[in-house]
């Protein structure tokens, strides 16, 4: 094989990494480079340094150490049987690239993942070496996210957590049968076992820091995971239930959804067409509802279509839930508690906080509410204000049609 240039390798290994949705660089410990000999800072909120035309933010240098892999997962472009071009970076090359990009303010840090070569331990060792070198040889204080390999030695996972801000392990598919069919070499039990292990390490680390301020931090930005949507038969109800159990059991910071997208030279086991991107969007909205709006997974399941088990694509899940629970509306904007206001379709967390603050200053009229929110159109049927009471609006049979955007023709077998 001819020698590949750094640029060629970067293109191959970035291309191979783009199916990982996560690019977050928020929520880690605050630190900066003053008083050090290196560079880097993290100040709570991550920064998106660029956006690609797919609408995704580019915050981290997201690459694979190598795209060679001994596994044969059908949905993955890097699987053993795929005829994609292979490349491999040395640890030193990744370190240099990260620092060179960081110095020019292109990125917040590194998100390193890898195909599995030789063995899980060998691969994990190489990834840990990149993080170690950045932190120790170069005093790099930017963000590092390492994808962890579930089968790797616990000591390697511990080292990974000492250098990295975030660790993640992908559950890949929402159902055990999907995993068996599409990723025969992966084992759902082992994946969850590794997550359990990471959670325990993180909690030990937090305990230690409560006692000794100098105790090292373990993955201060927590752990996350990713599920592929639309490659197996799991419906939204099953996906939401799985996500909710992962949040509860392993204290995940985030569950990412990635709508299965056609990959070059795919395996014949896969569907040829992608699921609608809107489906992924609706799942993220449901994720928000669980994390910020106080909905239980079971309640969101009630917003899914009875027959298909999927969230409606034409309206958002919060509106769908409200239309199915009209008895609790309209809600009085001047008296309702925070939890009730959060359930009003069209009211976000910020708007609710502004309402709670402002109503101490006097009774709110509809016009005041309009100034506190982005759009009043969707809200009107669900709210009572000082000068507004929707007359039987929530009883209208055509309420859904009045609030949903106009329908578009759907593709056959989309």
């Amino acid at each position, binding site marked *: 094989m001819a020698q590949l240039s750094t640029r060629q390798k970067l293109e191959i290994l970035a291309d191979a990494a783009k199916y990982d949705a996560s690019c977050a660089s928020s929520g880690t410990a605050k630190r900066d480079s003053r008083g050090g000999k290196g560079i880097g*800072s993290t100040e709570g909120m991550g920064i998106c340094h660029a956006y690609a035309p797919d609408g995704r933010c580019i915050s981290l240098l997201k690459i694979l150490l190598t795209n060679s892999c001994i596994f044969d997962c059908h949905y993955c472009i890097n699987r053993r049987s795929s005829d994609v071009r292979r490349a491999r970076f040395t640890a030193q090359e990744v370190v240099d690239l990260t620092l060179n990009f960081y110095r020019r303010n292109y990125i917040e840090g590194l998100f390193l993942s890898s195909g599995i070569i030789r063995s899980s331990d060998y691969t994990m060792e190489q990834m840990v070496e990149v993080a170690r070198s950045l932190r120790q040889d170069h005093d790099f204080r930017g963000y590092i996210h390492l994808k962890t390999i579930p089968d790797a030695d616990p000591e390697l996972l511990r080292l990974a957590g000492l250098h990295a801000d975030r660790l993640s392990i992908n559950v890949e598919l929402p159902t055990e049968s*999907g995993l068996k069919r599409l990723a025969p070499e992966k084992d759902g039990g082992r994946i969850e076992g590794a997550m359990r292990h990471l959670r325990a390490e993180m909690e030990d680390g937090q305990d230690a820091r409560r006692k000794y301020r100098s105790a090292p931090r373990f993955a201060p930005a927590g752990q996350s995971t990713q599920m592929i949507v639309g490659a197996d038969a799991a419906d939204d109800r099953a996906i939401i239930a799985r996500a909710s159990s992962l949040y509860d059991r392993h204290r995940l910071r985030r569950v990412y959804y990635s709508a299965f997208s056609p990959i070059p030279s795919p395996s014949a086991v896969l569907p040829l067409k992608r699921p609608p*991107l809107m489906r992924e969007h609706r799942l993220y909205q449901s994720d928000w509802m669980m994390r910020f709006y106080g909905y239980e997974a079971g309640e969101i399941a009630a917003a899914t279509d009875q027959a298909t088990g999927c969230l409606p694509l034409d309206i958002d899940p919060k509106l769908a839930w409200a239309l199915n629970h009209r008895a609790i509306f309209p809600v009085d904007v001047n008296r309702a508690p925070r939890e009730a206001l959060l359930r009003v379709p069209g009211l976000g967390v910020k708007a609710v906080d502004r309402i709670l603050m402002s109503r101490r200053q006097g009774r709110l009229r509809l016009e005041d509410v309009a100034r506190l929110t982005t759009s009043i159109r969707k809200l009107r049927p669900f709210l009572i204000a000082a000068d507004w009471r929707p007359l039987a609006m929530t009883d209208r049979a055509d309420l859904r049609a009045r609030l949903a955007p106009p329908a578009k023709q759907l593709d056959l077998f989309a």
Partner: protein
Amino acid sequence: MHRVSLSAPDDFDGWRAAARRLAVAGVDPADVVWQVGDAPGDLFGHDPLPPEPERAAFSVPRAFVDLAQTAILHRDPERFALLYALLHRLRDRPGLMEDRADPLLRRIDALGKAVRRDIHKMRAFVRFREVAEGDDTRFVAWFEPEHHIVRDNAGFFVRRFASMRWSILTPDLSIHWDGATLNEGPGAQRSDAPDGDPVEALWKGYYAAIFNPARLKTGAMLSEMPKKYWRNLPEAALIPDLIAGAQAREAAMIATTSVAPRRPDDIATAWAALREGAMGCTRCPLHGPATQTIFGEGPLDAPILFIGEQPGDQEDLAGRPFVGPAGQLFDTALVQAGVDRSRAYVTNAVKHFKFERQGKRRLHQSPDAGEIEACRWWLSQEIALVRPRLIVALGASAARAMLGKAVTIGATRGMPIPLADGAEGWVTVHPSYLLRLPDAARRAEEHARFVAELRMVGERLTALA
């Protein structure tokens, strides 16, 4: 009339000192003119500022100071006056900062928001280029902020790049860091900044490679990275070509999948795995009462695929499609029409038996739209694997599954319907419909029509082969 001259467009301390004296003296906001630097022509005479108060006569909430510090960086020339007007009102209404519906507060809030966004975008979109400086190097960037944020934002770059030497040049102000102290210089021009850096080629390569052409969402990109920033972002030069190439790349990806020789054993593995997946399907409630999932069967390279409605009582027990009375009638009709049954793949729109129990008998019930929709995922996977030239829908449920919408048999039967995946669709009646017709003459007539339509399909298949 009072006139206040501030030393710089972001002179918060100057504004605060003057505003405090004016507010304590109760000066009406309409009687104050704010300006930056010395005014060229003094049209009106003006009164001196009221004296410094003995001690702070009233305190303002923290939220006001935070908002004012941010909003004052806005380019809007009215910002000083607006902030003073808010301060003036706060004297009598200390709770005003909590009334987020107040129009003045809302306007100033919007200024603050725009400034915070600009600060954030500067942190994101500054692009350094490395230049030699003596034995060392310096990183230099050219940036055009919208508001007066550069001085305020310098701390971020100091904290992040403490060990580097760097300069950020902007039209109004330049800042320079030498590793220990921060210096300010006058505004600069784009041509003062270096025009390239060898690492940019790598960065552009990365930008193009990390973009997924299968999911184009330019609206989302534009809302976060508006075009006004593009000219100072090296990677933005690639965007038009990436967008133009995206649809073509995705189409090519799907096309190579379809023309690449698909290994028969790959397809067999895929089909077996699909069938196994369907065995555990719980996409709709029908899996509860039914005995098992009845998956389709037939050659995986079949040129023709028949969709029935759903398994019946006998199929549910036997585990295979088209073995009950309707299936037997279907077999007979195919022989009469001269269509080779052994070259056909047969399956159902819904893969579980739906029934109503009446004594010992399980009476067939038609699946509803939701059940058909839930099961359509499996059907579309079967079609994608087998890739038949012709798809024949038997009955209304099958036609709905094939076309994705309800149609009437009478209006659609007996003619080719082009399908999205390139196959040709046909619609005819379900054989069980013939079994249910009570009148023998009518039954014979409909049977003949069914056979005639199957014969048309057979002839079409020969023509296409």
